């Protein structure tokens, strides 16, 4: 019997006060196994102890929301008797230690969260952050991590049979020691066939299905709740190994078993494995759960109770079936060649009782274990920022070359190298895939389509977490508006550094408050999500990186893409040209890539105007008045015009400005609320904009294979589209194979 010493408590990342609380709950000292169980359930990763207080500020209700936070995934009504279940989750720490498996199991984990609710996954998107690929010192490692993560996501998603339809990828030095891998997944279910992770019915059997339990991933959740040090490589055994084929079997078997009507509740075994699934299901059902570990399928002999309870072996599920109907469940799992065994039963005493060889090794009240984790109101001061407020003077020697530099930069260049490795079409629902402002998937069952977008901008959030968070919500909604969709629900992934530092905690608090305000305003309730803290290596934290994923609804039809299609059309800016003071230019891609500086504040956002711009473009697109529509974001007007030109037809534009201010600012500022359309009916489009009190400015016309921008008749940019496109399309490959 292991004695509980202060050292042992400390290695479990529990504080003295937390340990005292455990003793108070149990009325005695915990056993070694119980200590392990508490340590994972009360880890930052599982308990949200630093963030929970602030997450309550987020809006979670809406007329379409069927299920908000607290379940495995959020659910929104998509009409026709169907719902969409979706969530985003991070796998940052494992992906740094072992990029391929870390990212692969990240995909596996979020897919299980979706199908455990009875929804068949139909789409995945990913938000990735790496250190710069061309960093003179860290470049080689960054490239290895990026290649590993992308092939890990491809490996898992492609084999499982879910299309990876979009996402975003950004490179900053702050991710050198801490890449981010956030994976979003969405599934579709019948509204009356949603399954919840609740253990109900005293006497009902608790059934373990899927892969056998091994010693992999023990303490994964705790690992994800600490900073990295030089020794972190030794944590490689904490990373799990994924088997997408097994997950595919698990998906089919679970959905088929759910159809039998014999399943009462079901939860996947993700972080904290058997521990988390048993106590959370019991806690939600207000019941107890009793299991015998000898019955758990095991990959090796001689595993201790501690190891079995804390293992994070992948591709496992725990379910509660109706007593007497076990055979119906077993029959389905046998058909798919999977282990399914009764390991225990639901009890009425509210306790998680774990036996091994018949002897009790843990006995903990479910409710307190799952829901009474400590809650911290951590001190927060001013958000950390090391950037001046004022800009240095700058001018440009050659604006065409500046545009080329931006198009070849890591954040703006084509991400084709990444998304071509993903099967983005399997299940034949992908109407608009990677490279679009928003992905569009048809729902065959309802005849409607879902649009979805992921956005984040740590550069903005570093300068102002509050304003940055509002901007990303606005941009995400804008991406949906551009394709003609109405946003219905959102999910978020909050990636931050060490919350025990007041200046980092302040970033988290301000970002959450900004996001809450914007989500309320744009009517995109947060239905679930994930918080990833302690993203620090050797004391160096990442920039605040909240990521938001928003899902929208639209009629199924041929999509309006972002590319200009035919010459001779009017190019219009819906929302007007926008203004940008020099202080608001310091977070732009131009400042990053061309000036190599960071200063000031993110672009100014007028949420009310933004909402009206979105409504305008949605109306224009739905009325069929736009041949193309694309919003302005990274790189501003010039980059957006170039991106609009990069369609297969190579149709560019000739655009005339009459700007008095700084030319680099005019061409490259990133003020929101601006959308470029090409149209043969500019008058009609303008009328629609007027109805919303929105500016709509005709700025030029589309032409074949040329991108030309003049100001008061002076040529600022003049280039062949094909040349620009080649630069943009091949840049990432060139960086990877440097």
């Amino acid at each position, binding site marked *: 019997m292991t004695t509980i010493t202060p050292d042992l408590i400390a290695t479990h990342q529990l504080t003295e006060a937390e340990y005292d609380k455990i003793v108070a709950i149990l009325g005695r000292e915990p056993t070694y196994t119980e200590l392990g169980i508490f340590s994972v359930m009360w880890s930052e990763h599982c308990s949200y102890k630093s963030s929970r207080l602030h997450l309550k500020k987020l809006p979670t209700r809406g007329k379409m929301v069927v299920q908000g936070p607290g379940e495995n995934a959020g659910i929104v009504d998509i009409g026709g008797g169907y719902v969409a279940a979706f969530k985003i989750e991070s796998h940052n720490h494992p992906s740094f230690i072992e990029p391929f498996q870390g990212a692969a199991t990240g995909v596996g984990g979020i897919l299980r969260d979706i199908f455990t609710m009875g929804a068949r996954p139909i789409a995945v998107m990913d938000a990735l952050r790496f250190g710069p690929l061309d960093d003179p010192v860290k470049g080689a490692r960054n490239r290895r991590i990026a290649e590993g993560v992308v092939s890990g996501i491809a490996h898992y998603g492609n*084999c499982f049979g879910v299309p990876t339809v979009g996402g975003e990828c950004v490179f900053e030095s702050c991710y050198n020691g801490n890449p981010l891998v956030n994976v979003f997944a969405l599934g579709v279910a019948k509204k009356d066939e949603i399954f919840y992770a609740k253990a109900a019915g005293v006497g009902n059997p608790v059934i373990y299905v899927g892969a056998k339990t091994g010693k992999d991933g023990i303490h994964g959740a705790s690992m994800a709740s600490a900073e990295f040090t030089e020794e972190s490589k030794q944590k490689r055994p904490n990373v799990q190994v994924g*088997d997408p084929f097994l997950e595919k*079997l698990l998906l089919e078997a679970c959905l088929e078993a759910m159809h039998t009507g014999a399943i009462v509740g079901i939860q996947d075994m993700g972080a904290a494995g058997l521990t988390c699934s048993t106590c959370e299901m019991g806690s939600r059902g207000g019941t107890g759960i009793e299991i015998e570990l000898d019955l758990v399928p095991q990959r090796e002999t001689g595993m201790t109770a501690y190891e079995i309870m804390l293992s994070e072996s992948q591709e496992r599920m725990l379910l509660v079936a109706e007593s007497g109907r076990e055979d119906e469940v077993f029959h389905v799992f046998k058909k798919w060649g999977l282990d399914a065994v009764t390991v225990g039963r639901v009890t009425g005493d509210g306790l998680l009782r774990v036996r091994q060889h018949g002897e009790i090794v843990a006995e903990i009240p479910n409710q307190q274990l799952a829901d009474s984790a400590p809650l911290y109101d951590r001190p927060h001061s001013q958000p950390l920022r090391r950037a001046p407020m004022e800009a240095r003077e700058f001018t440009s020697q050659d604006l065409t070359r500046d545009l080329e530099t931006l198009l070849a930069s890591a954040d703006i260049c084509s991400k084709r190298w990444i998304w*071509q490795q993903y099967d983005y079409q399997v299940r034949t629902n992908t109407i608009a895939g990677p490279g679009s402002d928003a992905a569009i998937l048809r729902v065959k069952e309802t005849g409607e389509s879902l649009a979805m977008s992921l956005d984040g901008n740590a550069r903005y959030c570093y300068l102002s977490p509050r304003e940055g968070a509002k901007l990303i919500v606005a941009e995400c909604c804008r991406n949906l508006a551009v394709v003609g969709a109405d946003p219905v629900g959102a999910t978020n992934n909050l990636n931050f550094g060490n919350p025990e530092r007041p200046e980092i905690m302040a970033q988290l608090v301000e970002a959450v408050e900004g996001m809450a305000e914007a989500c309320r305003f744009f009517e995109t309730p947060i239905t679930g999500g994930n918080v990833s803290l302690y993203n620090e290596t050797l004391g160096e934290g990442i920039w605040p990186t909240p990521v938001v994923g928003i899902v929208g609804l639209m009629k199924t039809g041929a999509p309006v893409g972002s590319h200009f299609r035919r010459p001779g059309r009017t190019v219009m800016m819906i929302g007007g040209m926008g203004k940008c003071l020099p202080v608001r230019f310091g977070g732009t891609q131009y400042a990053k890539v061309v000036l190599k500086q960071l200063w000031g504040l993110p672009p100014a956002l007028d949420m009310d105007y933004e909402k009206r711009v979105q409504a305008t473009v949605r109306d224009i697109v739905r009325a069929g008045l736009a041949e193309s529509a694309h919003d302005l974001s990274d790189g501003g007007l010039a980059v957006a015009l170039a991106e609009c030109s990069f369609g297969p037809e190579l149709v560019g534009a000739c655009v005339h400005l009459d700007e008095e201010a700084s030319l680099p600012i005019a061409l490259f500022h990133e003020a929101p609320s601006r959308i470029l359309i090409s149209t043969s009916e500019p008058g009609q489009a303008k009328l629609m904009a007027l109805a919303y009190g929105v500016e709509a400015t005709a700025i030029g016309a589309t032409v074949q294979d040329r991108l030309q921008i003049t100001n008061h008749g002076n040529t600022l940019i003049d280039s062949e589209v094909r040349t620009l496109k080649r630069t943009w399309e091949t840049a990432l490959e060139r960086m990877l194979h440097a």
Partner: protein
Amino acid sequence: MRFGVVVFPGSNCDHDAWYAVRENLGQEAEFIWHDSDRLGNVDAVILPGGFAYGDYLRCGAIAKFSPVMQAVKKFAADGGLVLGICNGFQILVEAGLLPGALVRNAGLKFVCREVRLRTETTDSAFTAAAQKGQILRVPIAHGEGCYVADDRTLDELEAEDRVVFRYEDNPNGSERDIAGILNCQRNVMGMMPHPERASDPLMGSTDGMVIFRSMVSAFAHA
């Protein structure tokens, strides 16, 4: 006409093939479970894309031993139409119903994109409705789609007009740009690209439909 779509546990394009022939083409379709040793009353068999048994070994290496494949062999020997798409092509090759092998893409990475296919022969039940030389825009999605065979086999395929499709822009290093081939009796075809993903205007191309339509008319005239 009644299509049978074989379902291995790791098939993931089975519903797509079913949807294409049933919803887009308006024919009958049913699924056939991998451990069934009978095909039932079907007029043609589709081996769909996916990862039959995980394919951690060699793609299709385990699938060839499945009960359903013994039935498919017999069905093919009796002259039945068999179309193998992507993983289905890999399985046909492993099962010896088609010559050659499919190995890792030359670029060593999984590739998903649209390719342009040149129709090399219309003398087959799979392309009779197409024009010789017709270019089809059809997506690929595979990691092991590089077609290889010894020169004698390749010469023979060409001499017997059994190369059905070639890539216009070879995406995987396949020898002689081969994307799809026929067996000697011309009733079994394997191809790496996915015609079922080019069967609906919403997906951006309907060029794949010509293959399914050809099969229907071949059956009607048989």
